[in-house]
């Protein structure tokens, strides 16, 4: 939200209301996923080595030599602005994955074709059809 240009005061206000729960939840998830139980753990001094090795979660990969993103289930990486603003603990981004990892030069090395699948709808066309009165209510 900060990165999108939302006023910092509004972001902090929202975080003051809901942020503690969100951050606690994210930290718990991060701890659960990486097996750590030390709640006082300090942020890592350096970013985790995201491509230090290939993870073969399901044991189905036929290759372990090709570069690429970590395999298996991961949470997505939050924008650094959340951490720089002190709203999210740095360790919440440890062991996470983002599209910059998935579509890095490393990951796309040797790639002949990339499919980006994303079904989305235009809510400006969808809303008046499914809820004809909604635009009026919004205007009021």
């Amino acid at each position, binding site marked *: 939200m900060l990165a999108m240009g939302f006023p910092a005061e509004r972001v902090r206000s929202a975080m003051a209301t809901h942020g503690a729960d969100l951050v606690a939840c994210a930290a718990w998830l991060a701890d659960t996923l990486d097996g750590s139980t030390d709640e006082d753990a300090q942020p890592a001094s350096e970013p985790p080595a995201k491509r230090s090795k290939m993870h073969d979660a399901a044991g189905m990969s036929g290759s372990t030599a090709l570069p690429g*993103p970590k395999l298996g289930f991961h949470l997505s990486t939050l924008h650094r602005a959340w951490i720089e603003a002190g709203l999210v603990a740095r360790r919440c981004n440890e062991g996470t994955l983002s599209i910059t990892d998935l579509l890095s*030069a490393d990951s796309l090395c040797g*790639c002949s*074709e*990339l*499919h*980006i699948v994303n079904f989305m709808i235009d809510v400006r066309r969808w809303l008046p059809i499914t809820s004809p009165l909604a635009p009026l209510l919004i205007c009021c």
Partner: protein
Amino acid sequence: MDRHLRPQLDFVVHECPAVRTVPRVVVVHGDGMPPQSQCAAAEPGRFVFLQPPCERFGTHHSKALFIVRPAELTVAVLSGNFIFADVWNKTNGIWTESFPRAARAPATAGSAAAPIGAFGEDLDGYYREVRELGILMHACTSR
């Protein structure tokens, strides 16, 4: 901010410039109109937009990446859309797996192909549908 709520292809390319090195980028989208994209307009030969037939406004809300290499296919299934807010401001889930190239179907009838499992069959179905869709759209646009 893209109020059309379509995939923000330019945002993806900005965040991941290596996408522009891929010879062919297939964008599978919904809702009638492909995402507006300056990079796709600049390189129309690299980007292909496909829309599978579905109900108006769609019945699916899938998000996935398929990275195709000669000997391997990497699949990423995501819970977030390819838009700034979902990528950077929300905690989403990502599942990623790589698969070796499947063996060709046996030439002789009666001999069984190696089992590829339910996910493999879904992948195979996806590829066949996309291929047919691509052929269909190519036929329509080249008339």
